[in-house]
């Protein structure tokens, strides 16, 4: 199946009509659109996605909710009452049949205000399909179900979208619309991937067939046929009633099983999400311990630092003596100028004078009353004789100052030492604070691991419950089916006794035979698919990564897991943290491998004489897929694509084009270039981009 063309009308940056025709040539099956970033290549991928699925992707530049579909230049010309359309028309070809899908949206101005250029969608989008058989177009089929005449019953609401889904499964859209820059949203559930692989391998047809003949819920061919059997006798009727009851139970069980499996899958997904978060958080538990320790260290160091400062303050508080001691030279200079020796009269001291004063009479007999001259003289003398003479006191004083000076001589250096200590610890505090900040950024302090763990355990037990219930129902279903089948056999025996049933019984026999054939076919196709795919994946991985230490394996979850070969006999260790480039490369490996598998299967079946095995060959639409790959890997991957995909449509930068080696697969008329004038808002596409 190939894309023939895409036509855009006022879609995002492409004003007016823009059409690209794609190469449907078997050998040169690559169409390339070159252009710099921001010029509009991603918009083309969006056009595919929107046209087919009415979906948009968040890009590097805009969140998907903010994307405006209508071209800006057109918006600017809109009057308050005008209505403009945006449409994308995609033509797909498969053999002699073409399908033309057109999706249209209508827009009007949001408010009447002159300056407000906001627009809003007017009504629902319209989706139509025209099937062109051998060049002859059929009627326009509307997705909203408004199709008149005989078509009304066939083409109900949603029919066009469902057709698109069947041709290009939305679940696979992440595989065949490969958006190199946005990769990583692997939200596809296992059942979708598995179903998608079934689709690719053309197994869906078989499954449908088996469903319609026997396995389906509700009416099946076999049920219909059996109902036509004319029964006779009570035993016959009884058996029929029992079979009907069993059929009802079987339906019920099948429903229940599906419900449990859906619930199980959801639970598993949630459980795995939480497991990953817990794993990330295991690190956080340790980080939290480390963080708390750092905080404690910092607090202790700050206390030390404050103590150092307090020490400085204490030392400085006693510095009066230091300052005073420094004035000793001044004191000495002053004392030197004055004769303080006083009178040293042998044997005469202050006690002598006091004694004489008390006596009231001097040695020489003079009267020593308070008002007498002799008294005054004696009092003056008292001041200058030992021990009152100042010389002694002064001497003591200067000795004191000397002591002060001596004892304070290390004050400044002591304070400087403390200052040094203060600074060192301050530096260490800064270091620790930096460490703490880094750590804090690293971990989410709000992560409540206990709650995460509790949540995780809840999902684990839910998984277990659903699995148990499912298994229970499977057992019961199995039993019911076996019982029913045996009763059917009994019924067959009875019915053969009635000749009128011959025709029906014949039909039943053929139906059973056809079913058995389908079942065998299915088993054959599915057997070894997983193993084969794994083989191919392994090979491609080795080729791309060329890393002897690692290998890749597809696991039960239908995702590729990367492992390191174990060293010394321990269990192989899984590489959880892949870089963006590695994750992209892995997904390429997946796509290329699935496509290669499809090709191999097709070849097998062709070799076995089968035509149209139903294997789907999907076209690949790739937007900037190589942006995160190395040149070497780009070339490796690029070369494989045309080999395994029926058609490759690729948007890329010139620099990636050079290393892709794809030029041998491109016809010149299928090379385009996106241009954007420097001042212009809109982009244009022109042919012949390879000059």
């Amino acid at each position, binding site marked *: 199946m190939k894309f023939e063309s895409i036509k855009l009308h006022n879609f995002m940056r492409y004003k007016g009509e823009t059409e690209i025709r794609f190469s449907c040539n078997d050998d040169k099956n690559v169409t390339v659109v070159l252009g710099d970033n921001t010029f509009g290549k991603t918009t083309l991928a969006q056009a595919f996605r929107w046209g087919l699925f009415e979906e948009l992707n968040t890009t590097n530049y805009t969140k998907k909710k903010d994307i405006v579909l209508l071209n800006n230049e057109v918006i600017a010309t809109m009057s308050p009452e005008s209505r403009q359309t945006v449409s994308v028309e995609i033509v797909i070809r498969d053999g002699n049949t073409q399908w033309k899908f057109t999706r249209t949206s209508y827009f009007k101005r949001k408010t009447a205000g002159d300056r407000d250029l906001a627009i809003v969608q007017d009504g629902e989008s319209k989706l139509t399909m025209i099937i062109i058989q051998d060049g002859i177009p059929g009627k326009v089929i509307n997705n909203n179900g408004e199709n008149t005449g005989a078509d009304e019953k066939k083409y109900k609401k949603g029919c066009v979208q469902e057709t698109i889904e069947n041709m290009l499964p939305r679940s696979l859209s992440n595989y065949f619309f490969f958006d190199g820059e946005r990769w990583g949203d692997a939200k596809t559930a296992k059942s979708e991937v598995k179903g998608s692989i079934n689709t690719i391998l053309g197994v869906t047809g078989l499954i449908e067939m088996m469903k319609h003949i026997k396995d389906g819920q509700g009416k099946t061919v076999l049920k219909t046929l059996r109902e036509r059997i004319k029964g006779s006798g009570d035993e016959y009727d009884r058996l029929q009633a029992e079979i009907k009851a069993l059929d009802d139970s079987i339906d019920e069980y099948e429903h229940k099983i599906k419900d449990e499996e859906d619930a199980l899958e959801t639970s598993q997904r949630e459980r795995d999400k939480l497991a990953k978060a817990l794993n990330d958080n295991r690190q956080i538990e340790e980080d939290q311990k480390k963080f708390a320790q750092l905080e404690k260290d910092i607090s202790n160091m700050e206390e030390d630092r*404050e103590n150092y*400062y*307090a020490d*400085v*303050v*204490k030392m*400085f*508080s*006693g*510095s*009066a*003596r*230091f*300052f*005073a001691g*420094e*004035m000793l030279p*001044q*004191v000495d*200079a*002053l*004392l030197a*100028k*004055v004769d*303080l020796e006083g009178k040293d009269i042998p044997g005469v001291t202050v006690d002598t004078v006091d004694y004489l*004063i*008390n*006596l*009231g009479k001097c040695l020489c007999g003079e009267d*020593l*009353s308070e008002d007498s001259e002799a008294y005054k003289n004696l009092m003056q003398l008292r*001041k200058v004789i030992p021990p009152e003479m*100042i010389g002694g*006191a*002064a001497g003591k*004083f200067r000795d*004191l*100052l000397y002591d*002060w000076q001596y004892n304070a001589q290390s*004050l*400044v250096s002591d*304070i*400087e030492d*403390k*200052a*040094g200590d*203060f*600074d060192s610890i*301050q530096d260490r505090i800064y270091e620790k604070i930096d460490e703490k900040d880094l750590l804090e950024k690293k971990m989410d302090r709000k992560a409540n691991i206990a709650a995460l763990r509790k949540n995780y355990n809840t999902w684990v037990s839910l998984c277990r419950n659903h699995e148990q219930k499912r298994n229970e129902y499977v057992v019961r279903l199995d039993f019911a089916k076996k019982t029913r089948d045996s009763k059917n056999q009994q019924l067959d025996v009875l019915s053969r006794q009635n000749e009128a049933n011959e025709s029906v019984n014949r039909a039943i026999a053929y139906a059973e035979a056809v079913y058995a054939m389908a079942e065998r076919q299915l088993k054959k196709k599915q057997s070894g698919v997983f193993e084969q795919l794994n083989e191919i994946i392994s090979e491609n991985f080795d080729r791309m990564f060329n890393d002897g230490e690692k290998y890749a394996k597809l696991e039960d979850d239908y995702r590729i897991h990367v492992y390191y070969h174990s060293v010394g006999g321990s269990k192989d260790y899984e590489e959880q943290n892949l870089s963006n480039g590695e994750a992209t490369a892995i997904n390429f490996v997946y796509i290329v491998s699935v496509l290669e598998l499809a090709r191999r299967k097709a070849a097998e079946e062709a070799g076995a004489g089968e035509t149209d095995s139903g294997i789907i060959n999907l076209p690949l639409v790739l937007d900037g897929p190589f942006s995160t790959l190395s040149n070497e890997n780009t070339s490796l991957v690029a070369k494989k694509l045309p080999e395994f995909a029926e058609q490759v449509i690729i948007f890329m930068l010139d620099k990636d084009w050079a290393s892709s080696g794809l030029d041998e697969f491109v016809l010149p008329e299928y090379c385009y270039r996106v241009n954007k004038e420097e001042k212009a808002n809109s982009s244009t596409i022109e042919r012949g981009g390879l000059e």
Partner: protein
Amino acid sequence: MAVKKEPPHVFEYFKTSEVFINGRFKEYVDKMWVQNKVQESMVKRLVDLYAIAAVIGLRAKRRLPDDRVGDDKRTIQMKQLTDTYQTLAPIMKLVLMLDESRGLNEEERIRSAFRIPETKEEHDAGMELFNSYARGGIEYIYEMLVVRPGSPDDEYGDQRINNILALLKDPMECPEIG
């Protein structure tokens, strides 16, 4: 016979009353000392600052009159003065010896330093002289420890410590004798 005379009545310095710090000097002091908060102070006790300030004021030859605006003041309690007597008293002697503002000659200055005041007037005059130098010192210290913005010669990370060291190393003007 003369009656044994008691030695003359004495008014010892730092033993009679508290010391008050008023007006803008209180403002200065508040920036350098917060009671019980060593991390916000630069001296442990107010009396420590008082003692340092007196010496600094003397060295820097700065005497300042009191600034009694309003009732706001800081008080140095008697107990503090008594505890620090062994430091304050010698500093008082230093002040009395080296102060040149009283119009005394050198010998008179020296003698004044070694007398215990015999009258209240003498005591008060000595205390006022001491306190005026203390005020000058408080202002000087404030300029050094609080106002000083730091210089390229400062060696350490903490500016308070740098200013303390700068003060300790400040040559200051020393009163010259003769």
